[in-house]
C-alpha cells in the first residue's frame, strides 16, 4: 500500500514558486489562500540561502485531527489527511495546532469573517464523489483518482519537491544524495543534475 508523503530537497529548490502556482491553478484556490508556500531562510546571504516548499505534510499522527472539535478530519488508506468542509466550523484550532501553518482560512467581509478551512489535499479531493464538480469546487482536483501525483511535485522544474509513495521518493532522494556525494555545502548545477556527461565540468553551468 502506498503511503503518500512530500519531501523537499533544499539543495535543489530555487524558489521559483512553480509549485505554488501549479497548486493554485490545479485546484482553483481562492485569493488569500496558499495551500503551498516557499519559505526561504538566510535570504540574500550568498552561499547560505536555502528555500523549501511547505504545505500539509500529511502527518502520520496529525495534530489537526486531534484538536478538531467537530471531528471533520480523516485519513485515507494511502495516508492522506483530508477534511469535510461541510462539517468545518472555521474555528481555527487546526491552524494553531499545525506546525507547518497548512490550514488556511479564506477571509471575507469587513469584519474578517473566517471561512471554512482550506488546505493541501495531496490532490486527492475530499469526501464528495470522485472527479465530481462538487468535489472540485470544495477541494480542488482529484489527481490521485486519475492515477496522477500532486501537481506541485510533478511541475517542479528541478525536482526539488518530490511527492508520492514514501518508499519511492525516499529511494529517489537517497540515490540523489549518493550520486552528488556531498552534503549541504555543495550546490549548483552539478548538484542538481548529477555528474557531468561529456565535456561539461562538474558544478559548471551550461
Amino acid at each position, binding site marked *: *500500500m*502506498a503511503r503518500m508523503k512530500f519531501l523537499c530537497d533544499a539543495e535543489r529548490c530555487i524558489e521559483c514558486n512553480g509549485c505554488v502556482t501549479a497548486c493554485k491553478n490545479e485546484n482553483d484556490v481562492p485569493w488569500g489562500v496558499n495551500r503551498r508556500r516557499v519559505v526561504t531562510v538566510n535570504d540574500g546571504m550568498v552561499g547560505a540561502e536555502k528555500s523549501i516548499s511547505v504545505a500539509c505534510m500529511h502527518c*502520520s*499522527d*496529525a495534530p489537526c*485531527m486531534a484538536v478538531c472539535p*467537530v*471531528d*471533520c*478530519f*480523516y*485519513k*485515507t*488508506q*494511502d*495516508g492522506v489527511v*483530508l*477534511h*469535510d468542509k*461541510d*462539517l468545518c466550523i472555521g474555528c481555527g484550532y487546526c491552524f494553531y495546532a499545525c506546525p507547518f501553518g497548512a490550514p488556511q482560512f479564506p477571509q471575507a467581509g469587513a469584519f474578517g469573517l473566517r471561512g471554512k478551512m482550506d488546505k493541501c489535499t495531496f490532490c*486527492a*479531493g*475530499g*469526501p*464528495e*464523489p*470522485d*472527479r465530481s464538480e462538487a468535489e472540485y469546487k470544495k477541494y480542488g482536483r*482529484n489527481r*490521485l*483518482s*486519475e*492515477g*496522477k*501525483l500532486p501537481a506541485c*511535485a*510533478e511541475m517542479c522544474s528541478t*525536482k526539488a519537491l*518530490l*511527492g*508520492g*509513495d514514501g518508499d*519511492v*521518493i525516499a*529511494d*529517489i532522494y537517497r*540515490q*540523489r544524495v549518493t*550520486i552528488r556525494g556531498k552534503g549541504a555545502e555543495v550546490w549548483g548545477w552539478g548538484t542538481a*543534475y*548529477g*555528474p557531468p*556527461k561529456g565535456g561539461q565540468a562538474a558544478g559548471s553551468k551550461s
Partner: protein
Amino acid sequence: MRTRTVVVAIVAALGLAALSGCGEKPQETAYKHGKYQGKPDTPPWDNAPLAYSQYVNKWNKGDEKGWTDEIKTRNKFQNEYVRIGD
C-alpha cells in the same frame, strides 16, 4: 518447592514487564471508513483510469494493487537519473 515457584513467578513477571518496554504501539492514524463525523470517501482506485495512462500500467476499477503500481511507476518519473539517465 513453593519458594521456587514464587521465585519463578516473580522472574517471569519481571521478564514480561521488561519485555513490555520493547513493544511499539502503532502511531499512525488508521483509516476509519465513515467513522469520523463526516461523509465517507471513496478510495482513489475505485475509479476507472483516464485515457492518458497508456504509457504506464492500467488498473481496473477497484483494483488497489493496479492503482498502486501505476502511482509507483509514475512516481519514478520524478527521478531524472532514471528518466533521462545520468
